[in-house]
């Protein structure tokens, strides 16, 4: 499946995704696996609700005082010799990278997985600058070779099967490979090791910036971020401005919450805490360290009682793994870098304009995302509020507007409602069969295309009520 950013809307993209059996099977399998592992590990760990509560409290405090902690963080970073760049927009972040790369005369870049670099389409810009960019996370490497975008925050190549991966690796390396996982991973290790050794710049994201020490905490299972930071002479960190924690003590909470929520692991395989570039007399580690702190629409959420909490997100992807909509349509159907419930909330907030305004509708509002969120972000409430804002902006389709006006007319008065139901009960007669409507016509088609619609019963609850009351009284 190719990237679907160019498609018209989430509905069309979802229709396309629903025809891809491998994708649906892979998404089901992966999300089930991650969800079950999370349940097992949090059950064993115990007191999970208390941990979630603690996570929420820490994130709430941090974001409510973000200016203070960002100031403290960047002062400490600079005290250890790192360079800090503040970027209000994606363009400013790209400009900062260009200046660093030009000053270093850099040609080759290795990267570890970072959603914020996906957000600003960094690879595309680096390639336009004439640089050779290699993604080193195995999943990201696969989708980079395929020319695609991630379909899951944590497992980006969820939609690729091993035959496709073998073909991509064979084309990249010019050697014959089997479809054995071990062979494919060994190819990636050999090839990417050469990329690390040749790179001028290593780019990573940042899971958490620790204000009290000016440290960057990075989590990976493969260990690729460590080689990205260690081998090239320059290390550039990209971070969303909200990725701050006040203290090392707070990091302990999130070192439990993040891997348990993301992949159901008790602990991440590698957590690197980097505090500045290499010290005097050290002969490995980057000589120069740059940290680019990005706003890109985040500050618009500050002070907004409805949406400030979206900045509490720690990008674990747990909401994707429980979402019944994500489960059916996968990540690309969202058409945004951030898929799933968090993507449906975040994408319209970070981007002005109409591009992602349909995403809040890609939800059943079941609230499973809130239950799964390790920092208790009320994503389902936010989706409703985004819909309200969309409607208030007057951008809804005239047909939808007319339908809801009619709904209000009919359901606003009991008499009108009763009359309508009586008429509908008669009208349904020609298309009702065995207690269901199956005809794929008219306004019901959206439902009956994939499910049967139950017919209106012979008597409504209101009509039954007097009889039920009599029976109840008779027994009592």
């Amino acid at each position, binding site marked *: 499946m190719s990237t679907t950013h160019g498609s018209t809307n989430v509905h069309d993209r979802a229709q396309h995704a629903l025809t891809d059996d491998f994708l649906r099977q892979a998404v089901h399998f992966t999300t089930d696996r991650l969800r079950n592992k999370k349940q097992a590990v949090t059950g064993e760990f115990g*007191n999970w609700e208390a941990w979630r509560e603690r996570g929420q409290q*820490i994130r709430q405090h941090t974001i409510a005082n973000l200016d203070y902690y960002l100031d403290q963080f960047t002062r400490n970073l600079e005290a250890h010799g790192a360079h800090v760049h503040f970027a209000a927009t994606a363009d400013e972040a790209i400009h900062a990278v260009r200046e660093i790369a030009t000053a270093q005369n850099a040609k080759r870049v290795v990267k570890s997985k970072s959603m914020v670099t996906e957000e600003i389409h960094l690879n595309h810009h680096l390639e336009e600058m004439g640089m050779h960019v290699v993604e080193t996370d195995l999943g990201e490497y696969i989708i980079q070779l395929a020319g695609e975008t991630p379909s899951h925050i944590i497992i980006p190549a969820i939609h690729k099967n091993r035959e496709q991966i073998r073909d991509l690796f064979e084309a990249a390396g010019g050697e014959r490979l089997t479809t054995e996982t071990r062979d494919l991973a060994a190819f990636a290790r050999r090839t990417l090791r050469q990329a690390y050794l040749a790179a001028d710049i290593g780019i990573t994201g940042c899971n958490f910036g620790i204000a009290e020490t000016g440290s960057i905490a990075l989590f990976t299972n*493969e260990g690729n971020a460590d080689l990205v930071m260690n081998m090239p002479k320059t290390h550039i960190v990209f971070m969303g401005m909200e990725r701050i924690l006040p203290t090392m003590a707070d990091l302990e909470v999130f070192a439990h919450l993040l891997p348990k929520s993301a992949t159901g692991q008790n602990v991440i395989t590698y957590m690197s805490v980097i505090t500045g570039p290499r010290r005097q007399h050290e002969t490995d*580690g980057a000589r120069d360290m740059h940290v680019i702190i990005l706003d890109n629409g985040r500050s618009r959420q500050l002070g907004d009682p409805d949406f400030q909490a979206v900045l509490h997100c720690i990008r674990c992807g747990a909401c994707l793994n429980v979402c019944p909509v994500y489960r059916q349509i996968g990540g690309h159907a969202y058409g945004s870098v951030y898929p799933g419930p968090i993507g449906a909330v975040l994408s319209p907030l970070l981007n002005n304009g109409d591009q992602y305004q349909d995403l809040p509708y890609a939800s059943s509002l079941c609230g499973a995302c809130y239950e799964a969120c390790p920092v208790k972000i009320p994503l389902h409430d936010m989706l409703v509020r985004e819909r309200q804002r969309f409607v208030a902006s007057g951008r809804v389709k005239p047909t939808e507007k007319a339908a809801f006006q009619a709904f209000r007319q009919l359901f606003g008065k009991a008499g009108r409602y009763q009359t309508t139901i009586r008429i509908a009960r008669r009208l349904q007669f020609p298309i009702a069969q065995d207690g269901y409507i199956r005809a794929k016509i008219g306004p019901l088609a959206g439902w009956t295309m994939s499910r049967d619609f139950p017919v209106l019963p012979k008597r409504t609850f209101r009509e039954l009520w007097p009889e039920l009351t009599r029976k109840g009284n008779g027994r009592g």
Partner: protein
Amino acid sequence: MDKATFLERIAKPLGRMPGDPPSPRTVVGVPSFWADRPSTPALRTASFTERFTGLAGEIVQYASVEELRIGFDHVLKDIGAAKIGAWGKQAPWSVDVEDVLERWQALRWHAQTERRAFDDIEVGVTSCACAIADTGTIVIASGPEAGRTVHQVPLIHIVILRTSQLVQSLGEALRGLAQAYERGEIAASNHFISGASRSSDIENDQTIGVHGPARVIALMLQDMT
């Protein structure tokens, strides 16, 4: 954008002025039920061993330094590695294994090391700053004689430690970093390693050794029971 303007854009909608102190914190770090758990040397050793092996780590415990040296020698023989790299002599080793490293002619890391000399080592030998019982984690701080390359590049990582280096929780190890920062001594890199390098990116099929070591072997001296 300059820092002052950037921070002002954040402070203003939060109803704050740049330079304002933070609001008082109601909670910091982990809940007390986690921080106040009982911890004894025996519990820490048992928990570390269980967690570390649960992450596919291999662990051998020794009652004396001499036994550890002999065991270390056997481990290297079993591996049959041709090229071994190790921290330098002045690095913070918690157990003296110099004679074994010399016998195996290990390449040693020091302040004049060319990193590329270590690019093809098969086994990397290090000590550690501490290890965490709750999670089976080894913590390695970088330094002039403790190059990061030594444990990141090879397929096999051997870590030498003492049971007295075990702490109960991740929080204790992180507190150590905050204290090192206060003293102006925090290392540029503190690496928390929990098992072997792994990925499930190919059809959810877990594979090890994608970038970092595929085997992590802990040789632990029992100096505290």
